[in-house]
């Protein structure tokens, strides 16, 4: 298949590469853009290891064509957190052992960041519901819930600190 120039906005950067129109977003990220944080764990969109944010929505990059997302804002695990700082979700995964082998972790982080964006104080049931599209074989999920709760609490404290300045509390 004839290659074409594809332009993607990934982690805030404009990236260009040549690839066939049927290039999967997962392969484009991993092979064309050397962003190997996003993982492939299955053949049939069942594991969630390849989740990325597309315009803020967690989507499976293994069933997305790269060329279809020109003009979209794509965030991979490498793009989480502010420059030089961890996202509270990442911090939670470190402090509460959300990651053992770490292979499913990028997908879980992406899904959790999106969850907390739309629901900053999820109940356990809401966390379980939101994370049910991601498989983890190591943790038995309990320390993953703890990691999410750590992030929720961190966001809350950050919100309180930011509140007197009149912003951030609405997050």
């Amino acid at each position, binding site marked *: 298949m004839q290659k074409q120039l594809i332009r993607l906005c990934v982690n805030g950067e404009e990236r260009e590469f040549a690839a066939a129109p049927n290039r999967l977003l997962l392969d484009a990220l991993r092979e064309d853009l050397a962003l190997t944080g996003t*993982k492939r764990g*299955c053949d049939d969109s069942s*594991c969630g290891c390849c989740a990325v944010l597309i315009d803020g929505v967690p989507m499976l990059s293994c069933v997305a064509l790269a060329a279809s997302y020109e003009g979209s804002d794509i965030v991979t695990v490498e793009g989480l957190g502010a420059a030089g700082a961890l996202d509270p979700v990442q911090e939670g995964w470190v*402090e509460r052992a959300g990651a*053992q*082998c770490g292979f499913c972790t990028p997908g879980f982080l992406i899904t959790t960041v999106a969850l907390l964006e739309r629901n900053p104080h999820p109940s356990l049931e809401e966390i379980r519901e939101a994370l049910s599209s991601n498989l983890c*074989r190591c943790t*038995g999920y*309990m320390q993953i819930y703890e990691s999410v709760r750590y992030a929720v609490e961190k966001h809350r404290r950050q919100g309180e600190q930011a509140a007197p300045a009149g912003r951030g509390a609405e997050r």
Partner: protein
Amino acid sequence: MTASAKTTTVGKPMPMTDARTKILGLGKYADDLTVPGMLIGRILHSPYPHARIVRIDTSVAEGLDGVRGIATGRDAPTPYGILPIGHDECVFAVDKVRYIGDNVAAVAATSAEVAEQALDLIRVEYQPLGAWLDPEKSMQAESDWIHASRPHNIEKEYHHVFGDVEAGFRQAAFVSEQRYVAGEVNHAAMEPHSTLAIWEPDGRMTVYSSTQVPYYLHRTISEVCELPMNRIRVIKPLIGSGFGGKSEVIPIEVAAAVLAKKTKKPVKITYTREEVFYAHRGRPRTIVDLKMGITREGKIAAVEARVIQDGGAYCGFGPVTVLYSGALLGAIYDVPAVRYDGYRVLTNKPACGAMRGHGTVNVRFAFESMLDRLAEIADIDPAELRCRNLLRAPCVTVNGLRVTSYGLPECIEKVVERSGWRAKRGKLPYGKGMGMACSHYVSGAANPIIRSNMPHTTVNIKIDRDAAVTVYSGASDIGQGSDTMQVQVVAEVLGVRPERIKLIAADTALTPIDLGSYSSRVTFMAGNASIEAAKNMRDQIFAAVAEDFGCRPHELTSTDEVIHKKNDPGVRVGFDEAVGKAIDFHGALVARGSYTPPDEARGAKFKGAGVGPSPSYSYSAQVAEVTVDPETGRVRVDKIVAAHDCGKALNPLAVEGQVIGSVYMGFGQAMEEEMVWNGARLMNPSLLEYRIPTTLENPEIECIIVESEDPEGPFGAKEAGEGSLAATIPAIANAIYDAVGVRINTVPFSPEAVLAALRKQRGAEGKGPQTPSEDRERPR
């Protein structure tokens, strides 16, 4: 070193040393690696379960633009296998294929697309043979054996008798006899296997592979590729977990090496998820015919088991699996007499192997389910029945296993208390139930796979002028946190902060040999070796400091980066300065430590006695609480309380993760995981159809850490990563019985199985006693 000493790093929750790399997405797993000029490999698999290969024609495929090399059985005919007695696999089939998915050829090409096209162009002529699929029929086979060297398709059989079994059954007041069957399961580690083999310009080879056993991979590649070990370097990158699925050499690893040697290029192959299921090495479908007798007082009098394991087409770890099933069967309790007949049978299906809780899981399900039956017949509370059969450590079991520490009593006590056992068990409304079971596991095998006097692991430590502490260890962290554990124990002994320590792990060019991450050996063995190396390092530093202080080395101690006199903390020197003095004194500092299991731990002397002995054993007790819907047969596991005796939790954060993860995996096998076969064809080789539990089904799991402080463990520690798994399945089975009064003897406990048992129960109602009809109650 005992646990009673006050510690600063050991015993404290510590995030994994590589956690940041992982959560930033920067960690490199094998498939994340690329090198210039790298080719992509793909493997051609057999469409037949059993067939002779008449001819392979690769000429058309070789002509395809972008194809750089094709390898078949002829390129690497040396058979290999993880056990010295089981070298029955060639990387590509030489004469016969033995299961659907067996490896026939491989292509290296400039892209995955070209490699896949080339596979379609390889012409293979097969002469199909009859396939052996049912182990009970396969072991009766008179001809067409899967391997000519294994008559009647029996890979291995063992017949062990310990104590006086007949006398035991004569003493028994209650005897139960049942058949239990557990389905075949796969590790389903999230990372599919991947190997990058690089042919170096000087005729050496560097191999990055998703392996739990770099040392055995190193040996096997040397044998198959006919390259001396000193020309091969094996490096373990980050591993996306293993659970045993990467604990023997997997065809992909040898295939990549053969292609790299043949093309003189770097070659990477990564399995699809479907290929992971064909490479398999999971837990075999197991048939357990179990008979157990207890006295009126509830003392186990005798146990008899006949175990058949459906091992698939190659040996793999098979004989070890079937030996573990026998060795660990009764050894958790004080059992005076055991008869064990174990059969590892070959069938035309993917090879089984080691999977978390290797060999113990399915027999434990049978044993603990039967204890529950006998408890009811004898009218003894199931927790109490177990308490009446405890070992008294230190002791040696009837089959020669040395027990040095035994936290099982405390585990039972803790789960009884935390679960509300006394108030709930047997007293919940119909449809709700509670069940208990126990399990145990080895902290490493006391005997190596390949007979040798070599230490099982060695650790080197180097300190230079920068005072950075570099630890070199061959141990393989596969996600369980063993790198972190080693950093912790070295920090503790040297009295420095963990941040000062850099661990270089599992690179055969840099790190001394460690046998690998299997049989839960790493904490015990690499932990002890790390402590010894750190002590040797500390001695060198103390010698120099003592000279400076004009005192004896033993008068010194080291804490929080300061070395000072024990009885005069004012006489002190910082770690960096102390290192400087020591280097002036000795030159750059190097120290070594190693671990060899003591002779007393190596077991008895009968045939097969080598498997089962361990320097120490972990213990676990669990209580499961379930809700059963009698209309649909659906079982919901509401909560599992698991107490695990890990000796000493060096890193409680990691121990908790290991115990909960084990329970989770047991829950998966109990409730929904099973490899489903239609004849020789696997019907669910994907994570969509082979369902591992998601957040929605997974129960709440509570972990209680019990610390029995093993006298030989590193700071008292034992294994934590496998032992809990085996208790989960029978705990759930026993809870189902408590909920609705049916015994399910087949795993998984699917709605169909539960519903069928409930229907049978309704049909049998009013026909006699409450005890299941298969049980024989025999008054003394």
